[in-house]
């Protein structure tokens, strides 16, 4: 039994046998507070002496510029966008996630394949197909899902500034203005994530609770996961 397994055939040319770290995923919709909790979790784990690395969507060396440029013009086809995100993710798993796990780090990823699968499904992709596309990914050690209802999300996002075009699904679009589209789009993303949470066994955290309570629970849970699977041991 390897310490890590893939959903499908894995990554071409890559053995998972020498990976000794941990892969922790934080999932949730835009504006739910993922960044805050990633930062707190990182500080907590470093306090305990773990080496921590982070990655998040569209942060690849290969594709992040291209995705940014494509978003500015909105000239890329919808399905091509799904695959562009998959390219970005593949580059990050190969160039960031795997090297960190090989070096024995705790890799915290701010969203993983699940958000990418959800955004593709909401844009009309076949669920079986897009899951198959991402089947090269490894199963994380734990996925924490910051759950919120779309109506509760609105005031939080507004407090941060105006609605973002893409976070409102305006490329699709799903309403006659940014507000309507944001509520409809995020609502559909959340419903897809709820479904994925059941399918893939996420640990759901109620994101409407007090921030400190959430982060205490998250830190304690991740610490248990790390203790249960000591460095270098097989699963």
């Amino acid at each position, binding site marked *: 039994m390897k310490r890590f397994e893939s959903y499908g055939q894995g990554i071409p040319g890559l053995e998972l046998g020498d990976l000794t770290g941990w892969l922790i995923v934080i999932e949730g919709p835009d504006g739910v507070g993922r960044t805050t909790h990633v930062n707190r979790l990182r500080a907590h784990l470093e306090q305990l002496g773990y080496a921590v690395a982070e990655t998040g969507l569209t942060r690849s060396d290969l*594709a992040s510029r291209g995705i940014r440029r494509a978003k500015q013009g909105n000239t890329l086809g919808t399905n*091509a966008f799904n695959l562009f995100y998959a390219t970005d993710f593949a580059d990050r798993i190969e160039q960031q996630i795997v090297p960190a796990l090989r070096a024995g780090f705790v890799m915290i990823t701010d969203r993983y394949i699940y958000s990418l699968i959800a955004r593709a499904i909401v844009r009309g992709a076949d669920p079986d197909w897009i899951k198959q596309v991402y089947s090269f990914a490894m199963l994380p050690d734990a996925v924490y899902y910051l759950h919120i209802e779309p109506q509760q999300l609105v005031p939080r996002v507004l407090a941060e500034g105006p609605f973002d075009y893409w976070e409102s699904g305006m490329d699709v679009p799903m309403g006659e203005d940014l507000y309507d589209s944001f509520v409809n789009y995020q609502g559909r993303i959340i419903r897809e994530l709820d479904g994925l949470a059941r399918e893939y066994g996420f640990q759901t955290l109620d994101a409407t609770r007090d921030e400190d309570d959430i982060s205490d629970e998250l830190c304690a849970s991740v610490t248990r996961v790390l203790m249960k699977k000591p460095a270098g041991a097989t699963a």
Partner: protein
Amino acid sequence: MSALTTYGQRPNAYPGKLFIVEGIDGSGKSTQLALLTQWLRSEGYLVTFSEWNSSSVVKATTSRGKKRQLLTPLTFSLIHATDFSDRLEQQIVPALKAGAIVLADRYVYTAFARDVARGVDGGWVRSLYRFAVLPTLAVYFRVPLDIALHRILSARPKLKYYEAGMDLRLSTDATESYKLFQARIQREYEGLVPEYNLATMDATLPVEVQQRALRELVRPHLRGVAAAPGTGLLEDDEERTA
């Protein structure tokens, strides 16, 4: 996984026709497709052309990946699928809907052959291209490896890193690596011929003989295809495709 998540399930449901050519480098397929394009245009058809790896938005990323050698077998496969998807959505399907003849130099079979030669799982790459429309006619240009290699290498090309398959570490010599890589790709193509029922062309025949054969393969599919606007050619000559 459902059986539907693989290539081959999306027939061409549009009025237009999609003709594609496949084969290893040096098989002469691009020459034949250029001649076919001229012929179809002279016959009065509305013809559009789509080339592998040419989506304007995606190309910058692909070029960057190649230049800096950032691409692995997995990301090489995905970025080409991204490019293909963009061209399918924005060029090929709209043209087919408009009733045009779409000619493609390389199609999904290039990815199936090349990515698998790079070590990508064959089932995975076939599911990756599930969204692709089945061509009306796909022609594989079959050529002995040494002839194709001679055609390419006698021009003393400067082989590029990925073109030569240098990422596979088959050889440190670019020419040697290219030969080994092309041989692998050809093996994959030969498997694809029966799998997808590709028409085959003997690419060792003289150019004009191949072109006649290619037109004969295409001709039965031209019945009822609309003419390009303003040419009036088709209306004048109903006999030709009969």
